[in-house]
């Protein structure tokens, strides 16, 4: 563990623990690239709005978390790239190299010639075991490069075959081989109207398996991110590149260094450990989602000013009313009055009005962050009865601004946000399963009907648990 201490009253610098990212499949690799790019761009941004020393500490911490250094000074992403066909990885590697600012390790990828065909069973039962040794070997090498290891960040989609199937397989392996390390899976929820016809099958198989082997599932829904691009960013012809950049922005605003409330002398050291500690108090509840404010195009940003009060008010209402973004928030939704019995358990048949949380984390970045008042998030009415708000809510701050935003706030929430989407996916998968459509494609590779039933059972359990908060 390296320690650099400055003299005087400048913050002492305890370097961060490192995160190893595993990018799987087309989606995982495309997003992974945007995430590393966003992290490094922000850390080099000249608009940090703080002193040079602060900027340097921020940069160093960010670098230690996500990059290792090469002799000629070009940071190398701490990442392992996995895909079963070569086109996307080739593109990802060259895009990173072209940026000139960072790159992927030369030997950090594992690639095959033929993809998983959108088939979870093929990814999990054929490709996974076949390539287990090679993939785990690459991961091990990356972990060994870390002086201090925080855990794994696995980026994957649920809808396809590689990210979902191999992602589930690898996560399980990580649980076996690195039982003391943390695993956070970044999961991309596909568009509801379909990118892949068997996406619901692939999704339920993925989620049920990850629920057993992962420590936290950080979920991003394509539909929600798409709306942000359309309504907040005003992008006319939205591409996956746009979607991925919004996603990367949200992840960056969570993962960049922050101070804890207690100590403002050094940045928090353990990005994954800290997140898990605050947000996943019970293994039955591990689905997390992100909301951030503000989010807008650069043009609009030039004409906007923000107050912490305004941002936090919106963010709180987004939490309570289950809004996915800053537009169209339903201001009528209110938490049940404290002291009164709750208004009955949430029923999926009625519209979800109030979103109950298990735990929330708010991260504030930017000017005058010390003046930001987060009392509204400590209201016990927001939370289930089984955690004291002092344990359920946490806030991290840094005056160092993020990306182009003078002030920005992000909420990472373990709440009922994802119940409805999860329920929908389970419902659609169930309807399809009842007709046995496409099942032969899975049984061909060893995933039987019982495996499907097991998955359905697990996920119904998760839905029910969250519903009954």
């Amino acid at each position: 563990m390296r320690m650099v201490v400055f003299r005087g009253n400048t913050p002492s610098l305890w370097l961060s623990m490192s995160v190893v990212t595993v990018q799987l499949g087309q989606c995982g690799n495309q997003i992974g690239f945007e995430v590393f790019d966003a992290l490094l761009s922000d850390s080099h941004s000249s608009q940090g709005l703080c002193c040079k020393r602060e900027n340097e500490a921020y940069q160093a911490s960010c670098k230690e978390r996500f990059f290792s250094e090469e002799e000629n000074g070009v940071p190398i992403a701490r990442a392992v790239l996995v895909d079963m066909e070569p086109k996307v990885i080739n593109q990802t590697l060259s895009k990173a190299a072209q940026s000139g600012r960072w790159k992927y390790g030369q030997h950090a990828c594992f690639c095959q010639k033929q993809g998983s065909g959108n088939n979870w069973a093929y990814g999990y039962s054929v490709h996974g075991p076949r390539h287990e040794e090679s993939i785990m070997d690459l991961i091990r090498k990356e972990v060994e490069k870390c002086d201090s290891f925080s855990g794994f960040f696995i980026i994957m989609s649920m809808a396809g075959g590689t990210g979902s199937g191999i992602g589930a397989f690898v996560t399980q392996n990580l649980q076996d081989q690195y039982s003391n390390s943390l695993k956070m899976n970044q999961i991309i929820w596909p568009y509801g109207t379909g990118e892949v016809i068997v996406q619901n099958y692939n999704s339920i198989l993925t989620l049920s398996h990850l629920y057993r082997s992962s420590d936290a599932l950080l979920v991003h829904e394509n539909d929600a991110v798409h709306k942000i691009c359309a309504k907040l960013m005003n992008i006319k012809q939205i591409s996956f590149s746009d979607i991925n950049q919004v996603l990367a922005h949200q992840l960056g605003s969570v993962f960049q260094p922050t101070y804890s409330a207690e100590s403002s002398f050094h940045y928090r050291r353990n990005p994954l450990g800290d997140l898990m500690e605050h947000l996943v108090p019970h293994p039955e509840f591990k689905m997390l989602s992100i909301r951030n404010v503000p989010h807008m195009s650069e043009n609009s940003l030039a004409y906007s000013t923000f107050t912490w009060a305004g941002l936090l008010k919106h963010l709180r209402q987004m939490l309570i009313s289950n809004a996915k973004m800053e537009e169209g928030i339903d201001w009528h939704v209110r938490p049940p009055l404290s002291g009164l019995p709750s208004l009955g358990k949430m029923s999926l048949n009625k519209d979800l009005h109030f979103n109950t949380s298990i735990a929330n984390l708010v991260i504030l970045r930017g000017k005058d962050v010390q003046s930001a008042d987060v009392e509204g998030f400590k209201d016990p009415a927001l939370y289930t009865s089984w955690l004291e708000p002092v344990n359920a809510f946490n806030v991290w701050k840094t005056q160092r601004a993020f990306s182009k935003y003078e002030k920005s706030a992000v909420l990472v929430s373990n709440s009922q946000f994802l119940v409805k989407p999860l329920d929908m996916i389970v419902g659609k998968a169930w309807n399809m399963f009842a007709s046995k459509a496409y099942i032969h494609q899975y049984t061909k590779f060893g995933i039987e009907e019982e495996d499907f039933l097991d998955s359905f059972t697990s996920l119904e359990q998760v839905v029910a648990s969250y519903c009954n908060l």
Partner: protein
Amino acid sequence: MTQSVVVQVGQCGNQIGCCFWDLALREHAAVNQKGIYDEAISSFFRNVDTRVVGDGGSISKGKICSLKARAVLIDMEEGVVNEILQGPLRDVFDTKQLITDISGSGNNWAVGHRVFGSLYQDQILEKLRKSAEHCDCLQCFFIIHSMGGGTGSGLGTFLLKMLEDEFPEVYRFVTSIYPSGEDDVITSPYNSILAMKELNEHADCVLPIDNQSLFDIISKIDLMVNSGKLGTTVKPKSLVTSSSGALKTRHKKPFDAMNNIVANLLLNLTSSARFEGSLNMDLNEISMNLVPFPQLHYLVSSLTPLYTLTDVNIPPRRLDQMFSDAFSKDHQLLRADPKHSLYLACALMVRGNVQISDVRRNIERLKPSLQFVSWNQEGWKTSLCSIPPVGHSHSLLALANNTCVKPTFMELKERFMRLYKKKAHLHHYLQVEGMEESCFTEAVSSLSALIQEYNQLDATKNMPVQDLPRLSIAIILSSENISPGSLQFL
């Protein structure tokens, strides 16, 4: 990246195949400016040093020396194949890839399947094995043939069983030209039905196409091009039928335009596997997403746009028109009306400057007018390939697993029965060794069973979609069981 081998059988199969190779070369030439042999080209072509005698000439990377098609050409008459070998594409094939005879199959499935099947079995196997050996990772066989004749129909389907046995892990995608009602081969219903049984049992995926539809599309294009109704001129290279601007000049043959449409179909089908894009779709995903039950593997295809106007900037309305057209019955390559039948699944394979929001907007717009089966209400598969076809800025291939194939099969069955009841021409078949009447009855049964599957699905068409009762779970975890002390960070 994977490779595919094209097996073109019979007169029709080889003519279409020829157009395909011509267009494939054109497409890769347009994309691959530097003449480097890359993975995209290797999907359909080998790179060979022609100075090396025998087999050792393959070059896996570097500059393109001489491209050879990954193809096996089979015909029991010499005419078409000879013409190919004397024509401008002769360098793309070599004699080692051909199997020909002189007498032809006489429009008799039994002759093609049984006589020539057994006669040429070993040779065919040898050529197939050779072509597989030249592949780093063989993913798919594309078989091109017609259903109505003898060679394409009989020998073409004999191949299928052989491919299934010999290369069980390699996909078998069959492009089948079905005979139109006015087909001049009297025995085409016999040949087609006998072939259908093989397609049912041994193909992974079939793209049925009929000549009448192709002809109608040509007429429509001619009308548009010549009518002067369009304000701007049509780009000459952009016709889905055109081979003008092709690398090598060829004499225009009667079916050229129609064959080019089919050739374009195959190119577009494989584009997302060969070229990069924001949402790739490999060939193994076609089967996975579009074949919900093994026997229902017939996919109706449509290609749009049929032509591109010279406007470089495409406003969204024209883009949206491309999507609308894909669902119109005039654009289908089979006489079928998917809009008024039931969708089991639909794939939209987009090429060019089209983004995910364009696709989503159009799916939302068109969905209400389409009927999807109850268990697959959002049954869309999407792919986005960055490279457009030559002469276009964007294009769309729609593949539909839809009950609209049923009328084609039913008509075929009717024509078959009309002949079979009278035992017309039956003796030509029965005199072939191994052929019995049971072959016919079994073939018809197989088709009837398939039609029945589609009927059952159609019966569900207008029924309201109900959500099925879900599993009910006993809640193991209740809030009373959790106290602050029991919650720990694990």
